[in-house]
């Protein structure tokens, strides 16, 4: 069975085609900068030459059409026709309290995902565009949605409730849901395997930091707290999102600048974070470049980012009354060795000993970046949300077929 996994972000679309008989990847790729005139499609067919195409891709429908064209292309394709795709698995950020696990896409599921647009304004609409585009281009192929919130459904009430009138939870389900669940789940399991210790005995803090970012306290294999809240806006400072702030700032600024609810939402989600502080970019690579050139705004952006992440690690250490391992993953977590170095050198009170050389190694494999004797083990584990999605899709589609 071949399964196409699609991960639609607001301006990007990642895909992987799996052959589930051996979980091998037939092809994978990424469409970046959707919505701009120089969108980049990078297609990597396994065992064949990589293809990069720059063109104007203004929305997800076009992106998926191009991806399917690449997959079935005579030269760099890996399948004869679209018919060889047996199922599609989508990553969806927000499942609310509707979805405690992955689900087959039907009219009901789509309605529920739409109802959750308010809660994930950057991501659920993008995922929906991916689902619609797949339906249009691959009619009749079963689709499965895998939710980022499902893993965090184990959080205790004291972690997911907000200290505001309870009626808001009763009426609107205002509570913490968290995000990046598939990733936190995957890397915490992989960390336990790497350390060759039973997951049940471990207190792990997983830092999934990419353009969006969240930290999770994983105790005995389940999520007990996570930094993203009801929406992906809470918690860490991110590429374009503010993360934690005094909630009173919102009405204050709305009043002063005469902003509508939509405008203030857009300000906090798309015009804040690294982009707002640095004034140049939402991308950590650009921020580090700027900092190395001595640019004060980039330097401040970097320092704030590191400081805020560090505070969360401290807080979750307290939440679990200890920590055995810290795991870094996702774009920034896997690649920004400078960030990890600064951060870990500020956490020596936990008994962390950084292995400076190991920290600099770039690799696609799980690796240790602390010394072996470090009281807290620190790992970099490349995340593989796609594989988790492919496995879930496989399981659910097999269920309906048999």
């Amino acid at each position, binding site marked *: 069975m071949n399964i196409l996994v699609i991960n639609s972000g607001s301006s990007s679309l990642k895909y992987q085609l799996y052959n589930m008989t051996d979980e091998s990847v037939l092809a994978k790729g990424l469409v970046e900068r959707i919505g701009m005139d120089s969108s980049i499609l990078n297609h990597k067919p396994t065992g064949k030459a990589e293809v990069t195409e720059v063109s104007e891709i203004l929305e997800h429908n076009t992106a998926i059409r191009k991806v399917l064209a690449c997959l079935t292309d005579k030269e760099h394709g890996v399948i004869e026709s679209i018919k060889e795709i047996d199922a599609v698995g989508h990553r969806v950020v927000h499942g609310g309290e509707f979805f405690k696990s992955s689900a087959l896409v039907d009219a009901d599921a789509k309605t529920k995902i739409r109802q959750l647009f308010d809660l994930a304004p950057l991501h659920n609409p993008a995922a929906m565009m991916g689902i619609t585009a797949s339906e249009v281009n691959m009619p009749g192929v079963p689709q499965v949605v895998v939710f980022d919130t499902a893993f965090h459904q184990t959080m205790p009430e004291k972690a997911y409730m907000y200290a505001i009138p309870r009626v808001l939870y009763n009426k609107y389900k205002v509570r913490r849901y968290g995000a990046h669940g598939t990733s936190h789940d995957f890397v915490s399991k992989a960390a336990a395997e790497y350390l060759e210790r039973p997951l049940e005995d471990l207190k792990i803090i997983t830092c999934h930091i990419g353009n969006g970012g969240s930290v999770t306290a994983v105790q005995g294999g389940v999520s007990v707290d996570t930094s993203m809240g009801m929406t992906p806006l809470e918690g860490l400072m991110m590429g374009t999102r503010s993360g934690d702030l005094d909630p009173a700032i919102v009405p204050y600024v709305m009043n002063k600048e005469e902003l509508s609810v939509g*405008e203030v939402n857009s300000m906090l989600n798309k*015009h804040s974070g690294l982009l707002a502080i640095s004034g140049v970019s939402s991308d950590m690579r650009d921020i580090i470049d700027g900092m190395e050139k001595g640019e004060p705004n980039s330097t401040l952006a970097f320092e704030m980012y590191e400081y805020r992440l560090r505070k969360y690690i401290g807080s979750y250490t307290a939440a679990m009354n200890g920590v055995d391992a810290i795991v870094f993953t996702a774009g920034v977590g896997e690649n920004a060795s400078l960030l990890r170095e600064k951060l870990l050198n500020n956490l020596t009170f936990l008994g962390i000993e950084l292995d400076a050389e190991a920290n600099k190694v770039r690799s696609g494999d799980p690796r240790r970046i602390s010394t072996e004797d470090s009281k807290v083990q620190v790992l970099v584990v490349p995340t593989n949300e796609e594989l988790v999605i492919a496995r879930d899709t496989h399981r659910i589609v097999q269920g309906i077929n048999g």
Partner: protein
Amino acid sequence: MNFKKIGVIGGGTMGQGIAEMLAAKGLDVLLVEKTAEKLDYSYEMIETSLDKQLEKWAITQAEKKLILSRIQKVTHFAELSSCDMVIETIVEDLEEKKKILNQLDQVCPNHIILASNTSTLSLTELASSTMYPERVIGMHFIYPVAKVDLVEIVRGLKTSDATFEDTKSFVDEIVEKKGVMIYESPGFVTSRLICLFINEAMHVLQEGVASAQDIDDAMRIGYQFQYGPLEMADRFGLDSVLAALENMFREYGELKYRPSTILKKMVRAGQLGMKSGEGFFKYDKDGDRV
């Protein structure tokens, strides 16, 4: 009915607002003006409006680009034949509008809805200029289009149920605004009530009961309007307010619709409100009060 591509005829204030709003909702828009110059001007105004939203953090660069890319400039009616709906929003002139609808009637397949963004004119009369009056309907948007989530859906005598249902679902589900159903009547609901409100405010001003600023503050703060009645009139355009009142005065024949003399005087003097820089208040070229 599957709405993907919408024609918008007329690139004035309302046409710009409607085209921009539809494009922001993901629809392809064909914007029509008489000349290439007028079209370029309308397009630039839409760009300016998007820039203002960008400044207010409402959208991003990429979103601005995407919205603009969905708006296509058109000067020939023939190109509208591929549209799933056409909305005309030219000047509030019965004969002009009839001419446009008649032309559309010939270009668009006969199941395509032809909507008019008239605020006061008779839909039945507009529809009489077409061979298929059952597909003609009123879709009255309110300025500023992007911010006001209400559309008056106006049925002429011959507007079919199917046309109404399709328009209603277009407004509710695609445009995501509240559509209210209105049977044809001069001024419908919104223009009829708001013009009387504005006219009365002008009488109050003329009688020297209070200053323009105090009248506006009283109503704006006291009854939670975004703008007071006089600033509202400035923003609609005093000529438009006058035209609407005169039309209702003619249609109903009741004195309460008679436009106040101060309104007539100001329009004659070319003080049309925000668009001319001066009305009851003064405005800069971005439309902000000075």
